[in-house]
């Protein structure tokens, strides 16, 4: 006989963590439902601090995050549109009070350990943020005249105002970073000679990809996208030609075409080799560019530049169509060629890491693609004491990944400096606390709100082109915010089930609006999954809950977590409290802080992280550790 399905171990933090799709999807595991509830409550400062705990840069990310949380949001599976998680983060940031009093205290007496970070981008800044409160001395070497890395050089000011950027970077620098600007590292070997206990490489992926077509080197009006954006940011470039071609359709291309328009270009075309489904840009960045009347041309494959007297006149493109070939990849078929006139061309077809400054004989191994080999758990290279994270480690990602790499590297550096194991990672924990306030009252807003996603308001089309630093997105107003927070389903208010209390009255099954629940006999997976009240639509990506055997009949309770709206009606209709709504509070370890531990003296962060439950029904199940 094939084995029946095993009961779900809800003491393992992973099960309930997976139910909170957004938090599970966020690389830094930001406690999204809780920060949205704090916003709903008007507690913007607490919401900001809760964000900062995991993602360090709520103001920056509230504008620029790649939002891995949103496509996985349960609302997508219910009404097609995710909660505007990212823009709600911006609300918390915009409306917060001064948070400096609530930043961790930096010990005046240092622990004697000195850390060098290369590159002042999001990963290095996170390492500094995590290590400085523990008494480390952190030096950051930055080759440019300003810190921030790509957050500064590559995100135009109309998307990320400078003041927002500097404020959040300063929180960290003011913890006592020894910041060396205009200080490129030319030799890692030389740096390693110096007296540092560990080195963190967060140098990003600063090399734009080349497009070596005929004519590439014959004009100064052909630019590499990220270098061009950097020059604009530093004021070295403040104008551009009338007709601009941007090659590539990633997010950098979107920033390039929109920047070109603000520098006076009147005819900006984005040239794509493939069709829209293959565009790399995030859908919302595409939308914003299209709103600004940027033209995006599909199936145009660049073949050569047209240069006259050192001046760009245009480009020749192959007009192609794509067909699948045997190995499953798409193959281009050329139908025709086309000349498109232009005064300037910007290449935005990707970026690479570059390590000419890492000697190949100092114990750091490189792979076949000339990338250093970095351990995915410890973030250490093959040389002890040299760590790596952010885009430098495995190629371009986005800010939130850089932050998470920084957190993990900081944990490793802390362990390394104290002679502890790097591979035994500190475990996550989870608190489960009942949200019951009364017979039919919960701490959270449990009614399903049918409102559609709030639409971001943009500055008027004419107005926004007047200056480079006019932020296009205006942010949510209070009405929009109040509506949007109600769209959150509070997925962390978990439907917690105690099998031994169940009398199998069916009340929960009958009331569940989404038919999530089934009481049936256990069986092998392929059989049991066919016998549920409603068909499984996203299994096993979205987990099942399998209970222990029920006391009266030996059957089991099965819950499909996929579409549960956490309305709590199962718990309200349960006569024995076998179902209860319990908030799962994921406890994440950071460098020097075990899961759930806080830096001394951080009372407001206590508040922000604490569950909102009150009254005598507090049922803390603390310390459930993986």
């Amino acid at each position, binding site marked *: 006989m094939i084995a029946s399905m095993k009961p779900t171990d809800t003491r393992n933090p992973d099960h309930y963590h997976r139910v909170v799709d957004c938090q599970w999807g966020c690389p830094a595991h930001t406690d999204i439902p809780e920060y949205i509830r704090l916003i709903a409550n008007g507690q913007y400062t607490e919401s900001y601090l809760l964000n900062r705990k995991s993602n360090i840069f709520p103001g920056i990310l509230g504008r620029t995050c790649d939002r891995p949380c949103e496509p996985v949001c349960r609302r997508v599976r219910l009404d097609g549109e995710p909660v505007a998680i990212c823009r709600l983060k911006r609300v918390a940031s915009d409306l917060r009070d001064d948070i400096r009093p609530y930043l961790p205290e930096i010990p005046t007496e240092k622990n004697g350990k000195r850390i060098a970070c290369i590159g002042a981008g999001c990963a290095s800044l996170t390492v500094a943020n995590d290590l400085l409160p523990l008494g480390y001395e952190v030096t950051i070497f930055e080759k440019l005249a300003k810190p921030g890395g790509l957050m500064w050089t590559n995100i135009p000011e109309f998307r990320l105002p400078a003041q927002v950027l500097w404020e959040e970077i300063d929180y960290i620098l003011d913890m006592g970073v020894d910041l060396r600007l205009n200080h490129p590292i030319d030799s890692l070997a030389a740096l390693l000679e110096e007296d540092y206990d560990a080195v963190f490489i967060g140098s990003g992926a600063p090399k734009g990809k080349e497009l070596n077509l005929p004519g590439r080197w014959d004009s100064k009006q052909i630019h590499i996208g990220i270098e061009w954006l950097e020059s604009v940011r530093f004021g070295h470039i403040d104008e551009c030609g009338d007709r601009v071609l941007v090659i590539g359709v990633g997010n950098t291309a979107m920033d390039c075409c929109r920047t070109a328009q603000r520098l006076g270009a009147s005819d900006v075309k984005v040239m794509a080799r493939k069709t829209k489904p293959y565009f790399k840009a995030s859908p919302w960045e595409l939308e914003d560019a299209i709103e600004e009347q940027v033209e995006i041309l599909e199936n145009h494959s660049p073949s050569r530049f047209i240069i006259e007297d050192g001046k760009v006149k245009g480009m020749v493109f192959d007009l192609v169509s794509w067909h699948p070939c045997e190995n499953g990849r798409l193959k281009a078929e050329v139908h025709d060629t086309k000349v498109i006139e232009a005064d300037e061309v910007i290449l935005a077809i990707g970026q690479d890491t570059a390590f000419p400054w890492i000697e190949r004989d100092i114990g750091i191994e490189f792979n076949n693609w000339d990338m250093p080999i970095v351990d995915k758990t410890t973030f250490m290279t093959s040389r002890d004491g040299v760590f790596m994270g952010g885009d430098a480690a495995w190629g371009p990602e986005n800010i939130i990944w850089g932050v998470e790499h920084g957190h993990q590297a900081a944990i490793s550096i802390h362990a390394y400096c104290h002679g502890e194991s790097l591979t035994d990672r500190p475990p996550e924990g989870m608190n489960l606390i009942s949200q019951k306030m009364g017979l039919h009252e919960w701490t959270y807003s449990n009614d399903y709100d049918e409102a559609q996603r709030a639409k971001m308001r943009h500055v008027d089309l004419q107005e926004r082109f007047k200056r480079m630093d006019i932020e296009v997105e205006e942010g949510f107003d209070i009405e929009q915010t109040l509506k949007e927070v109600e769209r959150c389903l509070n997925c962390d208010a978990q439907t917690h089930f105690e099998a031994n209390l169940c009398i199998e*009255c*069916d009340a929960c099954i*009958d009331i569940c609006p*989404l038919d999530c629940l089934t009481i049936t006999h256990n069986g092998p997976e392929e059989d049991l999954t066919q016998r549920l009240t409603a068909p499984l639509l996203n299994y096993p990506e979205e987990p099942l809950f399998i209970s222990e055997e029920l006391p*009266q009949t030996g059957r089991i309770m099965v819950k499909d977590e996929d579409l549960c*709206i956490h309305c709590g009606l199962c718990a309200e*209709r349960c006569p024995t409290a076998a179902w209860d709504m319990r908030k799962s509070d994921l406890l994440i370890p950071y460098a020097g802080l075990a899961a759930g531990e806080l830096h001394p003296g951080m009372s407001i962060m206590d508040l922000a992280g604490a569950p909102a439950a009150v009254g005598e029904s507090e049922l803390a199940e603390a310390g459930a550790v993986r």
Partner: protein
Amino acid sequence: MSHIKKPRIHHPALTRNRLGLTRRDYEGTMSTLCAGCGHDSITAAIIEAFWELEIEPHRVAKTSGIGCSGKTPTYFLQEAHGFNGVHGRMPSITTGAHAANRELLCIGVSGDGDSLSIGMGQFAHVVRRNVDMLYIIENNGVYGLTKGQFSASADVGSTAKRGQVNREHPIDSVLLALNLGAGFVARSFSGDKEQLVPILKAGLRHRGFALIDIISPCVTFNDHHGSTKSYQYTRDNYNQLVYADFVPPAHEIAATYDEGDVRTVKLHDGSSIRFRKVPGNYDPTDRDAVYGYIRERQRAGEVATGLLYVEEAGGVGEESDFHGLQGTVEEPLVDYPFAELCPGAEKLERLQERFR
């Protein structure tokens, strides 16, 4: 009672019946009964049965009396006609509705108190008259609405929540209905929808009076040790005597078991009930034998459940249901022109003249 309404959003794969309705379209308002009440499970089973039979809600008349059971019809078929009547008088009201409009599908929901105490006389006579209705008794052995006194269906020796022992003999609605000539008699359990839904469907399709007595535990006053109507007791002493499948008209029977174990009984509308796994000598169409068998199982301490007795559809001849017995007109009264229904004072005078 919940502060929120059950949200309208539903599972995307929820199927529609031939009328284009989902199961959710057959719901009523949110229940205000106690959490875990057996009555709510019965409501869910009724919703399922109506949806599966693809019955248009506006063709249904739902009636009830007083008690927790009296609230039940509010919770299903929002668009059906409904009447919440006086205590124990649901049978009269249903009889009236059915007499006036024989095309209405009548479902009456009553309780052990409503039917076996104050409404006992009404119950007896609606069985005798063979009104074409599905009569549900939500049987929990207590007066839940008045805080848990023993009802007339409480077993001798069973205890109340505070420990008092019942010494009065119970009235068994199933045995009573068999005695009074009911053509369709079933007992089921709110906690077993697999059994209950097919019986409800058969009951709705049966022409004439159909009784389903459903053990429906009262979680608040009668779900304790010592109760004989609790979830635990019912499950411990449950005997699914007969398994009955409802087969709509013109459906091929896909037999998955030996034909020898199956007994098919035809209903008036061409649908049929297939009995399977019936004990060797059990004949669900033999009234006396069924009566004896149920008594025997009761003495053995079992709760015999299933579609226990059904009268096979007769041949051509005089109908034995209410309208047949009364010799009424074929059409619903609502279809008659007003002048015919109410011919005026002159005709009344003439009629009265005949008796002078």
